[in-house]
């Protein structure tokens, strides 16, 4: 089995209100100089056939219209 992580994030150019909310909260906590915060999801899995992971991402884990994904095998 291949262990993998799939990172899913909102596509560039799509407003990410979660990221914005985090970004706005940071200065109040003393974290200056942090920009362009984007919040996404991470899915960990084990796959018999890692060659099929891209298809899995396209069909279920991500919505390719609004999200980018990245497969990291471990």
């Amino acid at each position, binding site marked *: 089995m291949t262990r993998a992580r799939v990172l899913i994030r*909102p596509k560039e150019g*799509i*407003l*990410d*209100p*979660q990221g914005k*909310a985090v970004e706005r909260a940071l200065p109040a906590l003393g974290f200056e100089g942090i920009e362009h915060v984007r919040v996404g*999801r991470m899915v960990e899995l084990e796959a018999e056939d890692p060659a099929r992971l891209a298809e899995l991402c396209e069909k*279920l*884990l991500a*919505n390719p*219209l*609004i999200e980018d994904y990245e497969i990291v095998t471990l």
Partner: protein
Amino acid sequence: MIWGVLQFPGSCDERDALHACELSGGEARLIWHEERGLEGIDAVVVPGGFSYGDYLRAGAIARFSPAMEAVAEFAAGGGPVLGICNGFQVLCEAALLPGALLLNERMRFVCRQLDLIAVDGPETGHIDTIAARRPALSIPAKHGEGRYWAPDEVLDEIEARGQVAYRYAPGQNPNGSARDIAGVRNEAGNVLGLMPHPEHAVDPLTGSTDGLRIFEAVAAAGVAA
């Protein structure tokens, strides 16, 4: 006229939808998400709620249910389908409707009565939202992920083809939806999805019966199909 109202684990508006279907004329029955057949059904409602807990993305898992496979076939055959709120999200995830619904712009769950403006659609063979028009339809919305989004070129296309079915009245866009879009239809016009809840606006007791106009328009398409 027989309505089928889908029910997923996590649906919560299917009973109100059944009631609205019955008020608009005809019988209505629940279709459990594991059922595959829609024999004898004239129109389908994909109701609101949180199908499969909204895990992963709203509508992402419901899309793969046996009942949704049946709905895709039903829609391909011209049968009228109405998706409300989570049902709209499911129809977008299933690519039966264009675009996607994102987290509300201001991160707040919206729960308020809104005015909807019906937009003219294709001439024939569709759910006639214009028959359902009055100056505006007063219908409540309640959602956290209702910001309609599609790439600009897709928005241009669906506007040109008359696929925008409803817009929020000027100044009332509650979630940052692109071009104030509250509801869209497919190219054939037999699949309609919207974020606000017409099934909650069917009784004078709760302030508006405008939601019934939408159910009646879907029923008319169901009789014609």
